[in-house]
């Protein structure tokens, strides 16, 4: 193999291999440098794609179209159920259809700034560059984006931007984009280029001679543990926000695939960069199983406020205007209610910590549409957000048109993930990572409507090129799994399943997950400090130990067993949580979604420390969870100059 693809973790700096030259020519240059696979030879290469969300579904379909032999895996019953489907608000693209001053460079700039200068410039520029192609592709597939009466596409504004570049499909943009990718994928399944394995969960990665060569899966209906071989593996398995137990993620969203790959040698980057979304429906009680997001687009018309006086329990309509604090408008006059997510979330926490929170438990703030309704009429507001008001009413039993909604931040997204180079390849050659599962483009904070953009850029337009380049340099190995390495991993996975079933304790899996979530939310959530993080580092291993002594998983491994599925995922969260906290402890600066109380300005804003922390922290698994090895990828800002992020 050429040395070019051999990026192994070494001491010292990690090289992302971003092409040299002007930023607007980097991707073009890289594409030209790439080796190509003869179309007649593509079917000889097997690519395993794990996950069928925007990155995985789009990637599998596009690779199938190119003629590769693709096998695609999902733990759902159908690829259409991947969690990308839940994204509400929209997808950014630098089309400048509005003539309002948008450009590729501005989207790039906003994304780097929004990420609080902790993203890799080369990747972000490419993302902005590809954003327009994504909209073209989706429209061609029949995605029903919102339109103007003239038949052209409509856009709206989103947090962290002053241009209107967000394309949307009512409040169901993720659903419609995913169905576009799903339909392209089903078309390839019908054509025979992609073979789909639904209800099949990846439980480990197989590395042969230092390269990713396959995966081991469990059939969730029969329990069969099976090995699959390929020439490359793509993980597009989403994020790990469920480490907080209560999050806006789907219940099954988990870290197992990326965590197993990490244990096999892939570096894990910036695990502490987690995003807490400011506009979610507050927790209503102990029974709560998940939190529901109310799209950020609501902040276009809703005004956020709390009473000025702590302990004010009057109903909202009894609190006169003069006794209300519209704190986002007060603190950030230019962005106001459209301040970015990390800033809005922290501001909500701050007012609730001061005892000014509203609703049961005092953990909520008002999102008030009274002014917008007075100005535009209830019908207009209904037209814009009707489905969200309906959802709010279903969950809370309250009418958001009559009384202000109550919202509170909730864990929503993770910017951290497996470290990848410019080609989206991890530190294990042949292991590629796309979408939320990688760490690449959002730095320390993701802007609204950028996750869909990144997932589809990775899937449609980056992985199909970079995988080809990798495969052009390897000889097809076929899908033979009768290699000792496969047997060994298969046995390990089998043992892992047996171990979970054999504990025979007294506590349910969910009860451990809840406990972990409480530790993470309280000690490593919206605000973090040295003492709290150290406390978490004591509690997590203890909880993990308790899990392996006391967890109760009933029934067998040879059938559909939902407790067993959850148990494996929670076991991995219990390990990942420790790395997340260690990363948060080591990064003593505040940046984006990572807020260290020790590092703030006088008025409570995040204070970055570019001298010491302008790098990607990529952690290597050493065999001891408490002692991962840190590798650094230095970040250089040549086009967007380092500056204090201000939305005032």
């Amino acid at each position, binding site marked *: 193999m050429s040395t070019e693809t051999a990026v192994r973790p070494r001491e010292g700096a990690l090289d992302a291999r971003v092409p040299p030259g002007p930023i607007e020519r980097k991707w073009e240059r890289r594409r030209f440098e790439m080796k190509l696979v003869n179309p007649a030879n593509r079917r000889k290469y097997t690519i395993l794609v794990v996950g069928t969300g925007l990155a995985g579904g789009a990637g599998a379909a596009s690779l199938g179209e190119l003629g590769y032999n693709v096998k695609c895996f999902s733990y759902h019953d159908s690829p259409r159920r991947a969690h990308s489907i839940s994204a509400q608000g929209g997808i950014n693209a630098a089309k400048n259809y509005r003539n309002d001053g948008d450009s590729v460079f501005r989207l790039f700039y906003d994304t780097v700034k929004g990420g609080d200068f902790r993203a890799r410039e080369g990747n972000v520029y490419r993302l902005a560059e590809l954003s327009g*192609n994504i909209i073209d592709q989706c429209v061609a597939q*029949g995605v029903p984006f919102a339109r103007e009466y003239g038949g052209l596409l409509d856009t709206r504004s989103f947090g962290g931007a002053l241009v209107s570049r967000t394309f949307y499909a009512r409040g169901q943009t993720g659903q419609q984009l995913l169905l576009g990718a799903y339909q392209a994928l089903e078309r390839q399944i019908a054509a025979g280029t992609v073979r789909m394995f639904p209800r099949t969960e990846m439980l480990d990665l197989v590395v042969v001679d230092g390269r990713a060569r396959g995966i081991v899966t469990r059939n969730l209906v029969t329990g069969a543990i099976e090995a699959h071989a390929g020439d490359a593996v793509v993980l597009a398995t989403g994020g790990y926000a469920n480490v907080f137990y209560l999050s806006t993620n*789907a219940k099954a969203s988990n870290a197992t695939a990326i965590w197993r790959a990490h244990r096999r040698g892939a570096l894990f980057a910036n695990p502490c960069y987690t995003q807490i979304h400011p506009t979610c429906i507050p927790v209503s009680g102990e029974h709560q199983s998940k939190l529901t997001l109310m799209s950020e687009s609501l902040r276009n018309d809703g005004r956020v406020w709390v009473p000025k006086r702590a302990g004010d329990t009057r109903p909202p309509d009894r609190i006169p205007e003069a006794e209300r604090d519209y704190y986002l408008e007060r603190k950030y006059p230019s962005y106001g209610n459209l301040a970015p997510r990390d800033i809005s979330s922290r501001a909500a926490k701050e007012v609730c910590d001061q005892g000014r929170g509203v609703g049961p438990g005092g953990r909520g703030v008002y999102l008030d549409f009274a002014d917008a309704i007075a100005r535009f009429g209830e019908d207009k507001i209904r037209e814009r957000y009707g489905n969200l008001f309906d959802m709010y009413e279903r969950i809370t039993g309250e009418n958001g048109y009559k009384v202000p909604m109550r919202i509170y931040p909730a864990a929503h997204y993770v910017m951290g993930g497996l470290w990848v180079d410019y080609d989206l390849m991890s530190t294990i050659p042949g292991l590629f990572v796309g979408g939320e599962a990688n760490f690449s483009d959002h730095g320390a904070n993701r802007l609204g409507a950028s996750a869909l953009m990144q997932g589809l850029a990775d899937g449609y337009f980056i992985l199909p090129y970079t995988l080809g380049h990798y495969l052009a340099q390897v000889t097809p190995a076929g899908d033979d799994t009768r290699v000792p390495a496969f047997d060994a991993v298969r046995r390990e996975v089998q043992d892992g399943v047996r171990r979970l079933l054999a504990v025979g304790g007294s506590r349910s899996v969910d009860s451990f997950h809840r406990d972990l979530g409480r530790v993470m939310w309280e000690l490593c959530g919206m605000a973090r400090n040295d003492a709290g993080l150290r406390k978490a580092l004591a509690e997590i291993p203890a909880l993990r130990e308790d899990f392996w002594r006391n967890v109760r998983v009933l029934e067998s491994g040879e059938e559909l067993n*939902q*407790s067993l599925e959850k148990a494996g995922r929670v076991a991995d969260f219990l390990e990942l949580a420790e790395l997340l906290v260690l990363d948060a402890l080591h990064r003593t600066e505040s940046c984006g979604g990572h807020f260290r109380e020790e590092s703030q300005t006088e008025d409570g804003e995040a204070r970055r420390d570019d001298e010491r922390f302008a790098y990607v922290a990529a952690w290597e698994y050493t065999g001891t969870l408490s002692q991962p090895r840190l590798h650094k990828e230095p970040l250089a800002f040549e086009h967007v100059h380092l500056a204090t992020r201000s939305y005032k």
Partner: protein
Amino acid sequence: MNLTLKVWRQKGAGAPGRFVTYEARDVSPATSFLEMLDAVNEGLIARGEAPIAFEHDCREGICGSCGFVINGVPHGPRRGTTVCQLHMRVFEDGDVLTLEPWRARAFPILKDLVVDRSALDRIIQAGGFISAPTGSAPDANAILAPKEDAERAFDAAACIGCGACVAACPNASAMLFTAAKVSHLGLFPQGQPERWDRARDMVRAMDGEAFGSCTNMRECEAACPKEISIAFIARLNRDLVKASFRPRRAAAAAGV
């Protein structure tokens, strides 16, 4: 509030099944239906009994994973609401609720309330797409679509593929599901080239599965959590008639 649940328990595909009665105690009205079941399952696990298997994921009414029949109604009593979004405040203390899986020959039961809905994916494979290979698209605004058509297409595209329409239909027909996709794509200019073959091929695929025929019972529309209109079925039928006058596209394989 306290409720009595009669739940269909079935160990696996082909195994015999039966209703088992459970009590749900001290249920808060603010709980969602699935959270109430979570609590019942926690109690079962504590007693060493197998928890009730049911599918769910996003719990926001959009992924289409969840769904079972509550007292004869798919997704339960609240219109336009998936079971994950159904909250206990719609029930009364002392209610007796019968929970059973989707009943349709095309959806074999895998366990308890979990069924196999892969037949729906196979209908999509037969033509539920626009052939637009990655990279081949023109500029997005080069394709004009009247707003009214786009809105109507969206109404159809809102389908979450949960299968409630099939479960509600006395014939277990998948006509609403199929019509929704045919209409969504057929309402756009970019969906026209494949419009007639799509209608024919998807209906043929549906007929090839174990679904029944549509006899306009309208139960599907009433049960659909996304309130998709049966007007789309009429539209599909019109497309099928028109398609019958057109020559079939040369047997080009889908894809590649």
